């Protein structure tokens, strides 16, 4: 019973990490067809802003919100300066964002130094069935689920969501109907960047804050997006669920590294079976 509970916690923890790692990347990819290789640097930015603000004495939630906000604003600026010129050239935009990632990581290293002092993990642990679980990580699982729900509402209920989906489906039609598509892309990229920043903020208390920390999230984010395909809800979420189980099982069997190796092997094997991702497969089945 206790070990079952433990495994359940492991799966939930992996799921949350995968969802939070991937959301920003998935929103930008699903909506704009752009893979943002500077994704990890937005996460790093969110984390750095969060610890800096928290150390000023502000409460952690406020600090995390600041992290997301700053990452989002940088995202919007970047979209205007670079990404905008590369629409319709997905292969070029992935290369350009890699360049940005290099500049951001190494630039941070020069400006900030090799690490920032962190903040402690809030809350303690609860014990259940003989094992103790850190409350903060349980909270992260809840946040991941809540974030998926919030995004669902954002894209399906709000005006921005309707306009954004229309722009993605038929850009020319949306333009003809008077939608400022440039602004929609800008906001969407900003949203993706802000989600990445939020992830950085959320995990900031649990990690060492170094300029290369974005790389820690990269593989998980890639794996989830490759398997998920272009749709955040019917793609990213189920992909994270499946990969979360794979990763948790492999991790509890042989440790963190084997968890990642298993993740990668699962991705490569699944690509062979589902070349269009989970969402492509589901959409095809539904017609």
């Amino acid at each position, binding site marked *: 019973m206790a070990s079952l509970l433990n495994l359940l916690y492991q799966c939930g923890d992996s799921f949350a990490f995968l969802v939070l790692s991937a959301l920003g990347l998935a929103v930008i990819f699903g909506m704009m067809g752009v893979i943002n290789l500077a994704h990890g640097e937005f996460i790093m930015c969110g984390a750095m802003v969060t610890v800096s603000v928290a150390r000023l004495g502000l409460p952690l939630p406020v600090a995390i919100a600041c992290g997301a906000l700053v990452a989002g604003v940088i995202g919007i600026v970047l979209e205007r300066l670079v990404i905008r010129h590369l629409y319709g050239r997905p292969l070029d935009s992935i290369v350009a964002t890699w360049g940005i990632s290099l500049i951001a990581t190494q630039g941070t290293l020069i400006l900030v130094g090799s690490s920032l002092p962190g903040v402690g993990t809030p809350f303690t642990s609860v014990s259940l069935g003989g094992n103790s679980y850190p409350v903060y990580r349980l909270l992260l699982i809840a946040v991941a689920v809540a974030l998926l729900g919030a995004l669902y509402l954002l894209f399906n209920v709000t005006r921005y969501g309707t306009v954004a989906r229309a722009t993605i489906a038929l850009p020319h039609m949306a333009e003809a109907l008077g939608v400022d598509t440039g602004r929609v892309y800008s906001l969407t990229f900003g949203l993706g960047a802000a989600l990445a920043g939020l992830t950085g903020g959320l995990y900031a208390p649990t990690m060492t804050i170094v300029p290369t920390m974005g790389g820690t999230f990269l593989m998980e984010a890639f794996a989830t997006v490759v398997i998920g395909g272009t749709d955040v809800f019917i793609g990213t979420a189920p992909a994270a669920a499946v990969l979360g189980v794979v990763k948790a099982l492999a991790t509890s069997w042989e440790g963190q590294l084997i968890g990642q190796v298993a993740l990668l092997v699962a991705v490569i094997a699944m690509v062979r079976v589902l070349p269009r991702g989970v969402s492509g497969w589901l959409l*095809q*089945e*539904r*017609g």
Partner: protein
Amino acid sequence: MSALLQTEALDKHYGGLHVTAGVSLALEEGEIHCLIGPNGAGKSTLFKLILGAVLPSGGRILYAGEDITNLKPFQRIRRGMSVKFQVPGIFQALTVRQNLAIALQHHLARAHLDREIDRLLEFLGLHAAGLQRASELSHGQKQWLEIGMAVALKPRLLLLDEPTAGMSPDETHATGELVRSLNRAGVTVLAVEHDMEFVRQVAQRVSVLHLGRIFAQGSMQEIVADERVAEIYFGETRYD
């Protein structure tokens, strides 16, 4: 006569939507067969099924007596099929000569390649454009280049998807004459076409596709005389 290409109860559905619902079509060796039908009748899906670009939900496809239902597109091409698309599928960044070379090099040694390319360029009226990039050609020239690539494969069965889309009446007529001359040389042709003038010019047999089924079949005269066909083309408003 024997059937070169035969589809048996070919079915393709996406969820509950049947795009083709049991199409049984037999193409005789040596004929020019035109496939017509109103928009959304399933013509292009049937075309993709025959090429292998999509796989059927049910039914079989036989080619020269062989079951090719699950073969990949390139395997079908190697068995003697060849295709010309509605939108010219050419290699834009490559020269006209390279485009033709890629189609020809399957069955020609390098020593003969240049001569055969020259012959084809002459035949297509593109001899002055051999070293140009394909992207620099006019729309009509691109259509001809793609026809040239389709012919270069020396097909036994030529599949044409609205081959005259965007062509002037003169170009359409010339394309029709080309198709007829290829047919006289032994090539079987299946064409999906909207342009009735073109169909009248080339078709030896016509099939009408409607709601995913073969609705009527016969010579052009028989189809034109068929009141039910006139109804689906002109009388759709009655069912609204």
